[in-house]
C-alpha cells in the first residue's frame, strides 16, 4: 500500500509543481478570502484580530475544496479514472497517496495564510507548538475527508457543485475544533485547546480509516 501511495503522491505533486495550479490559483484564492474578510471588517481591526482563528480556518476550508477538486480533476479527462482503476494500484494506496498530496499542499498553504493573518490582521501567533499540532491534525482530517468525498463527486456529472455540498457540512467539526484550538493557543491557555485537539485527532483517524477501507468501492461504484 505504501509503495503505491508514494507513487500516486509523487505523481500528483509533480503535476502540481508543473501546472502550478496550487501556487497560481489556490494560494491566491486563500489570500483573497483573507483580504475580503479584512475589507468587510476593516473599520474595527480589533474584530479581525479576535476573529483570526475562525477566519484562518474558513480560508483553509474553502481552499481545501479547490485542492481536492484539482486532485480528482487530474483523472477526470481522457479516461483517467479508468486508467487509475486499471493501473493495478492498491485502492488504499491511491487514497493515501492522493490524501498525502492534498495534505502537503494544504500545509504549504497554511504557512502562507499564517503570514497573511500576521500581516493583514495583526495577529500574534503565540503558542506555536499547539498551532502547528492543530494544523497537522486538521490537515490530515481535511485531506482524508476531502479525498473520500472527492472520489464520490468525481464520478458524477455534477462534481463541481456537488463537492462543496458534500464536504463542507462534514468538515464543520474541523472548522470548530481548529478555531477553538487556535483561540486557546493565541490566548496563552493551551490546556483549553487539548479537548479540541483530541476531536481533530478522532476526526482524522475516522476518515483515514474510512478512506483506506472504502476508497476502492467508491472508485468502482461511483
Amino acid at each position, binding site marked *: 500500500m505504501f509503495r*503505491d501511495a508514494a*507513487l500516486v503522491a509523487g*505523481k500528483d505533486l*509533480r*503535476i502540481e509543481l*508543473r*501546472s502550478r495550479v496550487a501556487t497560481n490559483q489556490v494560494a491566491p484564492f486563500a489570500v483573497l478570502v483573507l483580504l475580503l474578510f479584512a475589507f468587510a471588517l476593516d473599520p474595527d481591526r480589533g474584530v479581525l484580530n479576535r476573529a483570526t482563528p475562525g477566519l484562518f480556518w474558513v480560508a483553509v476550508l474553502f481552499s481545501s475544496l479547490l485542492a481536492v477538486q484539482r486532485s480528482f480533476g*487530474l483523472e477526470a*479527462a*481522457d*479516461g*483517467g479514472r*479508468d*486508467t*487509475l*482503476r*486499471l*493501473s*493495478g*494500484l492498491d*485502492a488504499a494506496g491511491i487514497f493515501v497517496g492522493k490524501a498525502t498530496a492534498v495534505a502537503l499542499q494544504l500545509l504549504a498553504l497554511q504557512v502562507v495564510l499564517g503570514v497573511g493573518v500576521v500581516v493583514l490582521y495583526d495577529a500574534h501567533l503565540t503558542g506555536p507548538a499547539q498551532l502547528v499540532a492543530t494544523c497537522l491534525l486538521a490537515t490530515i482530517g481535511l485531506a482524508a475527508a476531502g479525498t473520500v468525498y472527492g472520489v464520490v463527486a468525481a464520478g458524477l456529472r455534477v462534481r463541481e457543485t456537488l463537492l462543496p455540498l458534500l464536504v463542507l457540512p462534514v468538515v464543520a467539526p474541523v472548522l470548530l475544533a481548529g478555531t477553538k484550538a487556535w483561540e486557546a493557543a493565541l490566548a496563552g491557555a493551551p490546556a483549553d485547546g487539548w479537548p479540541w485537539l483530541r476531536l481533530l485527532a478522532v476526526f482524522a483517524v475516522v476518515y483515514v480509516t474510512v478512506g483506506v477501507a472504502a476508497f*476502492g468501492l467508491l472508485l*468502482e461504484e461511483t
Partner: protein
Amino acid sequence: MASAVCFRSAVVLLDRFPALTGVDLEVDPGEALLVRGPNGAGKTTLLRAIAGLAPVVDGSAEVLGHDLRRDRRAVRRQVGLFGHVTGLYDDLTVAENVRFSIRAAGGDPDGVAVALARVELDGRLASLAVAKLSAGQRRRTALAALIGRRPALWLLDEPHAGLDARGRDLLDEVIADAIATGATVVLASHDTDRAAAVATRTVTMVGGSLEARVRVS
C-alpha cells in the same frame, strides 16, 4: 488448458440499458480474437467487461482464472486496455507517463526506454510533456505504456484509430510480438482488413450479443 476469457450468458447493464444481453464467449490463451460489429453493438462494453470495468450482473464471467462476478478488481494488473481514450497526464512527460504506468503495475522501470523505442518515441520526444503531443503521438505513448506493462491479456478497442500509416504498422508489429510471447489479444475494430490480418478468429456482435463465429486461420 483453462480459457483466458470465459463468458457464459453474461449480461452487462449500462444504467438500466442491457449493453450485453447474454454473451457466450471463450478465448483461448495465446489467441487473437477480432470482435467486429456495427456501432452500438456492444464491442466496447464487452472489452470493458473483460477488463472488469463494466460489472457483469448475470451469467458467469471468468478472466485469467479470476471470477469477475466475485472480484472484478483481481484481474486488473494482468490486463491492458488500449481504447478510445489514452488516460495520460498532460503535465507529465512521455517517459514519466510510461514510467508511472509500468511502476503502478509492479513492472520494471527499466522497461521505459525499451517501450518508448518500440513505438519510436525515444530521444527528444520522451522528455516532452504529453500536452504538447499530437493525437497520434498520444496514442503511441499510451501504447508504450501498455507494452511496458506486459499484460497477459491485451484488450484493444479500435486500436488503429488516430494512428498514421507508420503507427498502424507499428501497432500490428506490437500485437504480433505480444501474441508471440504468449499473450492473449481481444480487439474490436472497424478496420477489419487490418485487424483480421493479426487475428486468429473473428466473432461478430449485434445488439449486445455474439452473432456468429468464423475461424479465419
